[in-house]
């Protein structure tokens, strides 16, 4: 792995790491859902919690009947929320009015497994059904529709009816219809199932662009392993419960960053990705105190970007930069901070809580050894 690409990845990691204050695109909060009534009533979703930020690409997986489709229809306002709270693009869905539902739906893009195109309309007209609804004027909508269809490899077939299109082409028209109005949220059910590798890739590339450029949130239910790599988050469900919810892309990038550091090199991939999930990103302005001598130590820091000064009793003893870590001594020895760390430039740090840090030490003796070596060298 060359240095340039790892820098690039690091900067992507730092840029895309969401601040805690960012409003959520989708906020599923303790949602339960039931099918049927009376004695036939059966719970299909159990206490689902899922928070998705703008621009995230989420892939939902799970066996059939696991409730992922139900959750998707709830998020998409296609089913009424029964219990709990569900906010989509800032709108609470519990008890939402019909009018508000219709309005909200216009801000969501749906891509269904079946293309559901009108046989009587051309590819272009089918896509235009979406822009017409929003009242996007023709002179804006038409070129955009054409460009999108061209991009999806339908340039020569823009004015063909679905009958004259192959299964994959129809699905691509449906994809274009789902994203042409640049919705804030796209919900897609197996969008690439009917597509060959190339057009499937094109679709997810468009998804990525939308996510990046428009901060569009994309939730995909899929079993297509070929597109797993685009996911920022992978949510997997079993029997109506969210059994894992991993920020996969962030963790991958973070793991790759950590692997380059001597301290973390010794960890195997499994442990590394497990702890990557626990890291938090924190940013500090120039001059601010990151930790203060004498305080109780609760966190471990890895510098992603910027430089810090180590000060003992008000005297600067050392400076640390990109890739260095600090804060471990207090955690290992269970002592107060032995030094103050101050940001010399704007600093971004990856932060691990004490408990998580200690569990890493316990899980890998070579990590502990490496850590001691590092502390020793520093002293």
């Amino acid at each position: 792995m060359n240095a340039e690409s790892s820098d690039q990845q690091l900067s992507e990691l730092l840029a895309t790491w969401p601040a805690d204050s960012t409003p959520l695109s989708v906020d599923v909060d303790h949602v339960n859902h039931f099918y049927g009534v009376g004695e036939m009533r059966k719970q299909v979703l159990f206490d689902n919690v899922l928070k998705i930020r703008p621009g995230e690409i989420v892939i939902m997986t799970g066996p059939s009947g696991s409730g992922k489709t139900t959750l998707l229809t709830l998020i998409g306002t296609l089913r009424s929320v029964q219990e709990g709270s569900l906010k989509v693009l800032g709108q609470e869905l519990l008890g939402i009015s019909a009018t508000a539902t219709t309005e909200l739906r216009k801000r969501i893009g749906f891509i269904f497994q079946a293309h559901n195109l009108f046989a009587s309309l051309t590819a272009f007209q089918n896509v235009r059904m979406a822009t017409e609804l929003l009242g996007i004027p023709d002179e804006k909508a038409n070129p955009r529709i054409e460009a999108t269809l061209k991009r999806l490899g339908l340039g020569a077939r823009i004015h063909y009816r679905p009958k004259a299109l192959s299964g994959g082409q129809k699905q691509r028209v449906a994809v274009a219809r789902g994203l042409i109005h640049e919705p804030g949220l796209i919900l897609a059910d197996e969008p690439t199932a009917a597509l060959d590798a190339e057009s499937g890739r094109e679709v997810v590339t468009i998804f990525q662009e939308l996510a990046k450029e428009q901060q569009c949130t994309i939730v995909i239910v899929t079993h297509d392993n070929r597109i797993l790599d685009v996911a920022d988050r992978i949510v997997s469900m079993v029997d109506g419960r969210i059994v894992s919810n991993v920020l996969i892309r962030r963790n991958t990038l973070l793991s790759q960053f950590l692997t380059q550091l001597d301290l973390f090199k010794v960890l195997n991939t499994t442990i590394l990705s497990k702890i990557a999930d626990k890291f938090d990103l924190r940013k500090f302005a120039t001059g601010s105190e990151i930790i203060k001598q004498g305080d109780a130590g609760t966190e471990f820091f890895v510098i992603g970007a910027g430089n810090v000064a180590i000060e003992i009793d008000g005297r600067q003893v050392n400076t640390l930069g990109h890739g260095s870590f600090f804060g471990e001594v207090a955690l290992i020895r269970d002592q107060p901070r032995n030094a103050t760390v101050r940001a010399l430039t704007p600093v971004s740090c990856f932060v691990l809580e004490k408990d998580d840090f200690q569990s890493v030490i316990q899980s890998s003796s070579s990590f502990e050894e490496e850590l001691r070596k590092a502390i020793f060298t520093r002293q």
Partner: protein
Amino acid sequence: MSETVTSTSERAIPAQPGLLLRLNLATTTIRNARSFREIGPIIPMMKIPLAWKNLTYDPRRLLVSVSGIAFAVVLMFQQRGFQHALFDSTVEIVRELDCDLVLLRPTRFALSVETRFDRNLLDVVASQRGVVSAEPLYVENLGARLRRENQKARPIRVLAFNLDRSLLLDRNGEFAPQLRLLERPATALMDRLSRSDYGFEFGSPSSFPQTGELNGRELQIVGSFTSGRDFAHTGNLIMSEANFANYFAQRGSSPLQQVDLGLVKVKPSDDLEEIQQRLIATIGNDVSVLTKAELIEREIALWDRSTPIGVIFTVGTLMGFVVGVIICYQVLATAIADHLSEFATLKAMGYSDGYFVRLTIQQSVYLAGLGFLPGAILSWLLFQFNASFTALPMAMTFDRLMVVLLATLAMCIISGILALRKLFAADPASLF
């Protein structure tokens, strides 16, 4: 895994500066769709005519649908046509009379009822201000039997008037050249639309005279005219007063003293209603004074209400209507059922129920229009055929066209509303 991630992100990132979504738009304008929504309504757009497109997509299905509606239209036209024809036929003779007001006994509740009044009354009427003329019309229904050689004698209606005062509008220009022929004794003109059972031929002018027997006395049919039959009358004869008096001795010693109808013409410049009121005041309750239109209306109302005819044909028309509703519902409901997931997708996209109502009503109206046109043309042809076959006046007037057109529209819209329920049932949650 990690290798894949690297390679795609490397590939994806440089590709960003923008092929697709930036291509045609300034990023600032597309940042949110809401800005479009604000611009939207100001700029008029040609919306995609989904209703029309869906309706016409499959020409075979459209043809079947349209045929179905057209069939219902024809049914309604036929029923209404016959109803009107039967009513029209009873008043056809009144329409042909050249007069403004008609005098008749109040007890003559139908034209075919034979109650009469004294001829002297007409002289009184004729002397009134504003009255140009008051002429007697003699009608014999029950007492007239016409027979041709080797045929049975059949009842026929005989009309008679003073040949010097033509009482007929003569719209076809048939009477003027022939009236002179009636001056000869034992002559009459016969309605060419009389039933063929009488045995007379109306093929060409050269086929006259033909000899027959009226009430046992010889009668020469010297020509023909065109009027038509109705429920009560299977044929018509027209003759002079003098000949009439000869044939109908049963009307008494002076057969022309008792008048069936009195036909009054008024000065065109005068107010018809005022004269009518004055005449009513003058002659009292013995004889009614009706305008031609009133008489026509009264006669039709009588047949419509006091006979089952009105009910029969109304039921027939309703049947056509109901058949139409069923056919149209089938067409629309199938159209919806076939596109249920597409409509559900539209719902998911944010199309409101109102849109679907408009869509379905639009389709209903299109179907009504498409079905009405061939239906009306076919009906018109059938009317021509019926008219020539039954000698009933099958007229397709503007009013009658409009009534059936409105019924067709109502029929399709009712079906549309029924079919809408199916559309509302389209559940977008079932799409995932």
